[in-house]
Structure formats: C-alpha cells, structure tokens
C-alpha cells in the first residue's frame, strides 16, 4: 500500500495535469500534439521561476503563465489562421526541445541541468491535492455545467453551437489556452515536485503518454485519470525492475526502460477497442 499508492499518485501528477489540458483542448475540437512541448517548457520555467523568485508556488504560477502565452501562440495559428493543428503542435514540440537547452545554458551555464531547487522542504501533499482537484473540477465542469456542455459541443457539433448563438471560436480559445496552462504546470511538476531541478529532455515523451491516456480514457475525464495511473504504475515498475533477475536471466536496463511505453502500446492496440474521438476534432472553424 504505502509502497505503491503514494508513489503512483506522485508519478501520475504531471500526467494528470497534461492530460486534463489535452482533454479540454481536444474536446473543444482542436488536436493537441504539442503537449510534449508545453510540458518541457513548463518544466524549465517552473524551475526557473521557483529559483528566481524563491517560491515553489510562484514557480508553478510562472510556468502556467508561460503556458498561457504558448497556448495563445498555438491558438493564433490554429484558430485565427486555421493552420494545420498537427503541424503547429509539432512546431511547438521542436521549438521547445531546442529552446530549453539553450535557455538552460544561458541561465545556469549548463545545457544539461539547472541549479537545484533546494530552498524548501520537499513538497508532499500540495501537488497531489492540486492534481486531484484539477481532475475533479474538470470532471464536474464537463458533466454538470452549461460551460462544459458548450465545450463538448464545440468539438462534437460546432454548427449546433453556432446556431445556438454561441461563439465556437471562443470556446476553442479557452480549450487551447487551458491546454497550454495545464500542460506547463504538469511539466513544472516534473522539475519542481518529482525532482529538484530541470534536466534536458526531462518530459521524455510524457506529453504523448498524456495523449495516449486521453485516448485510452476515451476523452472522458475519469477514465483518462485512470490511464495516467496505469502509466505511472508501469513507470514505477520499470524503475524497480532495473537490474532485477528473472529465472536467472538479467534483462538489460535499456530494455526494462521501454516497459511503460510497450505496455501503453499494447493496451492501445490490443486491449481496448476503437475509441471514438470528438466528431469535429481537427476541423478548423
């Protein structure tokens, strides 16, 4: 219990934030491949603001702010100019992968890692509660508020929303900016909560895993969180299986390292049936 539950919750925290961001964005009808880039920049700026302002909370806030700006750039491209959403997301990912080492070197003198965030006690419950709140609030807003309903309509049937006199563009903007904010905060969780510095490439595909969780969860908040837990669990197993022997055969560490990715792939392809994406997903409005 102690050995698994708490660590799984911890490991899932960044994923929960990122996948909730992806949820809002994709349910509003915009494909969000850029989660990985948002997370990576969030991881850097979370550590950066936490160190610069000597406050962990302001670190998360700063990362969220940067995420909002990035989400805005993404929104201008895909909503205002109706650019291809997958291409724009990919551009954000490439940009983030390139920019973070440069910023890291410019600020901390090394492209590989930042200074250590060591001025406070390690965080325990705060981020877990925040992630839980993020999921519960998303779920409640989705199911029980007119706002959530309109959000879903923007992604399922934008014409209907338009005919009801509600601006589709406005709801998509909210989805896109929320994705930027939440995914960046999720990234900051990696650098400030799960470890205590920014490390080059530390998102390590988690933005895509968050997307996989979203697909596994059929674009549904509760199931998506389950998907995050599943990945967190396999990721922990991976760490604990390093160097372990099975029946006298030692599996090499790089191979064990692929375990979470392989499990995710297996479940995506063979366990769950086809999951239905929001109907108007990817269609510019």
């Amino acid at each position, binding site marked *: 219990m102690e050995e698994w539950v708490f660590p799984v919750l911890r490991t899932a925290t960044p994923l929960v934030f990122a996948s909730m961001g992806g949820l809002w964005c994709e349910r509003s009808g915009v494909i969000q*491949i850029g989660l990985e880039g948002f997370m990576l920049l969030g991881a850097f700026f979370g550590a950066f603001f936490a160190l610069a302002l000597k406050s962990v909370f302001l670190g998360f806030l700063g990362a969220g702010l940067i995420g909002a700006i990035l989400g805005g750039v993404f929104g201008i491209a895909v909503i205002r100019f109706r650019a291809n959403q997958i291409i724009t997301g990919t551009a954000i990912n490439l940009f983030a992968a390139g*920019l973070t080492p440069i910023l890291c070197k410019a600020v901390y003198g090394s492209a590989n890692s930042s200074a250590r965030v060591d001025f406070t006690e390690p965080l325990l419950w705060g981020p877990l509660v925040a992630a839980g709140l993020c999921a519960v609030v998303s779920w409640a807003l989705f199911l029980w508020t007119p706002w959530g309903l309109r959000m879903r309509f923007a992604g399922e049937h934008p014409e209907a929303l338009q005919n009801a006199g509600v601006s589709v563009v406005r709801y998509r903007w909210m989805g896109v900016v929320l994705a930027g904010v939440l995914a960046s905060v999720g990234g900051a969780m990696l650098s400030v909560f799960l470890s205590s510095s920014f490390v080059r490439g530390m998102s390590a595909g988690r933005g*895509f895993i968050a997307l996989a969780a979203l697909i596994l969860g059929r674009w549904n908040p509760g199931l998506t969180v389950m998907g995050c837990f599943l990945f967190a669990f396999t990721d922990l197993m991976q760490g604990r299986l390093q160097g372990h022997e099975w029946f006298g055969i030692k599996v090499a560490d790089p191979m064990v390292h*692929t375990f979470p990715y392989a499990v995710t792939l297996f479940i995506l392809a063979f366990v769950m049936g086809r999951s239905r994406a929001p109907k108007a997903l990817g269609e510019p409005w």
Partner: protein
Amino acid sequence: MKDILKSFLGVFIGLGVGLLVVVAVGENPLVVLKAMTGALVSSPYDIGMTLFYTTPLIFTGLAVAIPLRAGLFNIGAEGQLMVGAMAAAVLPQVVSSPFLAVFGAILISGIWGGLIGWLKARRGAHEVIVSILMNFIAVGITSTLANGMFKDPDSQLGETAPVAEVFHSVPFSFFAGAPTGVYTVFALFLPYLLYGVMKRSVWGYQLRAVGLNETAATLYGIERGRVWILAMMAAGAVAGFVGCMEVFGNAHKFRMGFSPEWGFSGIAVALLARGKFSAIVPSALLFGMISKGSLALELETEKMTREYAMVLQGIIILSVTLTHAYKKRAK
C-alpha cells in the same frame, strides 16, 4: 509558383524570428549568423560536410512525406532509422554481399515502419502515438543489443564491432575526407524517383487517392488499410537508408545515440516541402545547412548550443504554415 513565394517568405520570417531568440538569450545575432554560415562552403571538406548533414534529412524527410501523402503523420522515423542502422551493423556477419546487407537493413526498418501502419490500419491505434512509443522501444532494443549481444568486446562504449571492409562505401576524394559518397548521390535522386512512382504507378495513385479523400478511395475499391501499411513500410525502408549511410558510409558500426534526432528534423523537412517530393531536396539542404551551422555555435558563442537547429526548425515550419494559411478575411 505563388506557393513557392509563400514558402520563401515563411522561411525568411522564421529566420528573422529565430534571430530574436538569439537576442533574447543575450547573444549577438550577427556573430551567430557569421558562425553558422561561415563554414558551410568555405572548403571542399566543408561542402562535403554540409552535404553529409543534408543526406539523412533527405531520407527522413521522405520517410515523413510518403505517409503524409496517404494522410498519415509519421513521427517514427527516428526509431526506424535506428532499427535500420542496427540491422546494417549486424547483417554483414551473416551475408557476404554489400547489396544484400543494404537490402536486408531497409527491409527490417521497413517492417518496423510497417508495424506502425498495421497497428493503425488493423487495430485502430493512432499513428502519432504509436510512432512515438515505438521510437522509445527502438532506442531500448538497439541500445540493449549494442551493449549486449552485439557489443564490440574491444570497446568501452555501447557500440557494435566494425563491419568488414567490403561493406564500406568509399567517400569521394574531392571532399577531402568528409564522409560523403554514393549515399548522398542516391539521396539526391531518390525524391525524383519516388515522384515518378507516385505520378505513374498504380501504387502511387492509390496512395494519393487515400490521402486526398479516404471515402472516395474506399468507394472506388482501394483498400485503405493496405495502402497505409505499404506507405509506412516504404517510410521505414527509406529511413533505413540513414542507418546504412551511417554504418557503411560513416562510422562503420552502430553507435548508441549516433543520430542527432535526424528523424525529427525530417518532419521539418517534409513540412517545409509541404509533402511535395520535388521540394524535399532544397528543404533538406536548408535544414542540413542549419544543422551543420549550429554545430559551430558551441565553439564560437558562449550561450548557444547545437539545439538552435531545432528552434529554427520549429519556428520555420510554424511561420511557413502561417504564410500559407494566411488569407485576407472576407468582409
């Protein structure tokens, strides 16, 4: 014609915005520009190196562009080229002819790519997620092999034993030692060859049909899933040439982490070319020059790193997409 102008405009805007990033981290953009362009064509060796950096980008650019024409987004070229390189490093122990070794390597990387297509076509898994997951798995498998079964016992690093001399492709002497040889020549022709295949063959026609209008293609009797699998196999095979180039033409063995994310740069190449095969070579040349140029940054500036190439890739594909997407709003 107008499209080309829009692309050029996008590239220039992108480069301009890219220089703003330089200013933002506190470097002199003129110094950066000079460092990046300084050693592109100043000697035969430099020309050779610029071509050497362009070659894998042509292959990976095609590995993204081929499935793009069928409506698939392949971000798995990185994994495909690694599998290809590992196969190229190991096959010479089994076969004796260089031709067979190359063929086997691209066959294996093709199967790796085809697997993505199969998972998409038959299991309904999204190709973007599948390809990124398979990249991680490819890294795991190849580094396990390079550190285990096929490790060079004489080396401390994770690399395979060198391949025999018969398999080496000899670089052209003109380039004074740059590892630029037949693979570069082949790469320069391949996009035009494939252009012909796309225009003239049944297979190319079916692929384009599925990419343009899935429903219409299905009604016409083209099996969508089969086209997807074949497109991804072709992509994997083309990406496998990067592995062959690395193993037979450059390092003569598989080295862990040999690829500076060529697979991802290929995305930028294909997107700047807007999926058009005829534009892959100039697009790869631009990003090849950027990659080569940014290597100099670490020596000649204090704060910039070679990753600046990726920053430019991201900004350029975004700005090119925007210049193409921009339309004056109807009043």
